């Protein structure tokens, strides 16, 4: 009885592991345009509600990246489960649906929503790149209609591997199996500037600024190609767990997206530097 289970497990790993290893988590505007009216597909506009109300991809619903914070001013902590439950139930989002998230094209907001959805257990989430600017430039279908939402039955569950607490990050500073990546600018990493009281970075963290993931395509911002990015992250060992942070866990979400695509085991320290840098009890490096 055990053997068939083992066998299925092995089969599962054989079939799905390579995909997890380098799974594209992005969709192209062309693809989305073709599948715009697909049932079960929920298109999420992660921009601010104002932007959404002005105009959005036809059929998209709004889930602003701002909703993914408890209190953005105090830090990047992810929104509370009971709040998230309401947000997702209201929008009819659950694991029975395919989700595509987009923003203007900068990818920070889309990445943040992508990450938050993954943390809250939504499995099939992809990101549109290039984003809305490209979409509208291509004159794909947009409008300002707010679709009627069918409430879902979402119950919160947390994928703890995709979120890192202060405690987990503390442990990671001394763990040989973990790598901490600072997604802020090199200036911030090197302590020349800071949004917190203190200057520097979390001990043992390496610096991979978010900007390495991005490029301009026909004048609109977009993610760089996966192959290119693989080279960028080549020095990052794949057998180690990666913990990302930035100011408020927003831009580091982009790194999170890329590393997920590349097959890393990666978590986002959502409270980020705004928590660590302000907690005088925690060690820092410069």
């Amino acid at each position: 009885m055990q053997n068939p289970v083992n066998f299925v497990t092995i089969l599962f790993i054989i079939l799905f592991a390579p995909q997890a290893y380098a799974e594209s988590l992005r969709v192209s505007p062309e693809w989305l345009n073709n599948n715009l009216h697909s049932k079960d597909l929920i298109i999420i506009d992660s921009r601010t509600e104002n932007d959404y109300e002005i105009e959005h991809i036809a059929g998209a619903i709004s889930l602003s990246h701002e909703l993914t914070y408890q209190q953005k001013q105090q830090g990047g902590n992810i929104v509370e489960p009971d709040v998230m439950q309401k947000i997702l139930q209201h929008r009819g989002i659950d694991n029975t649906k395919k989700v595509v998230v987009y923003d203007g094209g900068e990818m920070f907001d889309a990445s943040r929503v992508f990450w938050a959805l993954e943390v809250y257990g939504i499995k099939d989430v992809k990101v549109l790149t290039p984003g809305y600017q490209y979409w509208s430039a291509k004159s794909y279908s947009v409008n300002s209609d707010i679709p009627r939402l069918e409430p879902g039955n979402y119950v919160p569950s947390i994928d703890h591997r995709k979120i890192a607490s202060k405690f987990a990050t503390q442990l990671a500073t001394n763990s040989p199996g973990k790598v901490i990546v600072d997604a802020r600018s090199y200036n911030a990493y090197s302590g020349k500037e800071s949004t917190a009281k203190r200057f520097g970075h979390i001990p043992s963290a390496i610096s991979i600024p978010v900007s390495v993931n991005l490029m301009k395509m026909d004048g609109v911002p977009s993610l760089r190609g996966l192959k290119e990015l693989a080279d960028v992250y080549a020095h990052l060992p794949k057998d180690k767990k990666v913990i990302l942070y930035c100011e408020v866990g927003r831009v580091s979400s982009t790194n999170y997206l890329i590393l997920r695509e590349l097959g890393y085991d990666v978590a986002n320290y959502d409270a980020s530097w705004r928590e660590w840098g302000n907690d005088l009890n925690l060690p820092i490096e410069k």
Partner: protein
Amino acid sequence: MKWQSLSIRVQLTLLLGILLVIVQLGSLWVTYWFDIKERKTLAVEQAETLGRSLNHDLLKAILNPQAAIYADISFRLTGFYSVNSLSLQDQQGKQIYQYQREGSVKTSDTTETFSDEPYFSQDYLYLRQSLDADGYSFGAVDYVIDLSSYKTRLDEHLLTLMLIFPLELLIGLVLAWWISRTYTLPFTELAGAMQESDVEGNLFKKVSNKSMNELGVLYDGYNSMVHQIETKTGELIHLSEHDSLTGLLNRYAIEKNIAEHLRVDMAGSHVLMLMDLDQFKLINDAVGHVAGDALLRQISQIAVDVLPEETLIGRVGGDDFYMLLPNSTEDIAVEYARTLLLDLQEYRFVWENGEFNISASIGLVSFNAHQYTMAALVTAVDTAFYAAKRQGRNQLHIYRHDDNRVKQYNEDIQISAVISEALQDGPARFELYAQDIIPLQYETEKISYEILIRMRDSKGVLCMPGQFLPTAERYQLMTEIDAHVLWMYLEAVCGQPQHMDKLAFVNINLAGATLNHPDFQARLKAAIDKFDFPWSKLVLEVTETSAVGNLLLASDFIKYCRNNGIRVALDDFGTGMASFEYLKHLPFDVVKIDGNFVRDMLVDPVDHAMVSYVHQISKLRNQETIAEFIENQEHLAALKEIGIDYGQGYHLGKPRPLSEWL
């Protein structure tokens, strides 16, 4: 194959085997059932333990919903491999958190599946726990526990049991076989003993068993039964092989032994003897069968005492004994036979104040294995025996193949055949002769004679009485001959009135045994009725008085004769056994003095005195006397002088055919 045809051992083994399988399957099932129960209890306990350990965190998650707390719970839950999923509900029953194990199957449960009582499906345990703090319920948590890990262990356990099962069965069957073998062995042994027992040989195998239970009783019972059978069979065999009177072997047994000795190869020779008492019949008749039986027993004892221990002695007829000396030579056997004859001769048989001398005749033949057939050997020993008999009393005869006497015996057989012929319709026949009996004390015109017998065979050859009467005696034909002669004579003379007028008296011989023979007595009575004969002229001359036997019966018959006018004479007086006794007790009218005394009376004064005394005694008893063997004038003169009434002999007249007298 039929169940009944299977041996007890196989049946027991099968039954025990089946029992074993049933018990094992039963215990297997019970074990499995308890196992399941135990593992369910274990699963519930572990789930409850988990619940208690998570209780605090879950409470915190309800009261202070933070992603970090939830993440912590998720993280901790990943450590519990058996937790398939978990669902947290707040006070209102609203689901506020759920955990689904990575890679696990999402169960299709609803909140209704859960209750306070643990519920087991095929693969999962559904359990609801209330989240309590200080007696207040803040919500509930539903666990779905994957039982596969328990099941796996259960299956492993079951597999182990299943693997052990055939081993146990094997051991059990071996034990069953051993037990059934142990328990059927005594029966097999008993059956074997029964089969091995030689019933014909009366050899039964005894069995022994240490058991003191039913088996012991069975074995004891069998042994006791066998013992009884052996004893009884032994008695029966003894009875069937022994003569009840003497305790010697009977004819069947002795003949079986003789046949055995003829059959089994042996270097040495064996000797077979046939013995017969010379006057047994007389004693038997004289003093009765009880005495005869006693005599036979005593004779048997003498034979047993005299003959060597290994001798097989069997009584084969009235007073006939076979004596087989195994592995013995003729010379040794002859010594024994002579000793036996001597001992018998010296022996006096005493019965009710009477005393009898006895003697025996023995025929003897030595033989080797395969030399004779049984019939030929019996013929040989018979031949030797009759040869001995013929020689007179107290004789031993040894069989020789070319023996004259043996040849004579063979003639005997032929003669007896001729006698039988003569008694029937011929062609052989008897002829009657008559010899003068002359009154010595007076002159008379009348005639008197003794009737004598001759036999003419089919070829016309005349046989003298000495040639065939001994044979007739041996073949018990005398009574018939005597009656036949009487009848012939009466038929011959009854038609001759002149002759009967001339006749003073006629003496007709009777053998001793004839006198008391009922056949003869009946014939005589028939003759008296039939023939018109002057019966007062008939004198019955009884020879061999010793053979008369029962004197009382004889006396009665003699009285009968005398009532009819018939007189009775005692023949050959002076010789023979206990003659005076007979003379004294039987009412004879005439005494015929034995010729031997007459023949020698002129030279032997004792014989002369004997004749004289007999005459004097007879006169005292008012009996007439006849003297035989008168061969010359001197005899005649001497007898006349003594006063003998009648004389007979060649000097007075030779026997002539009766026809010449008529």
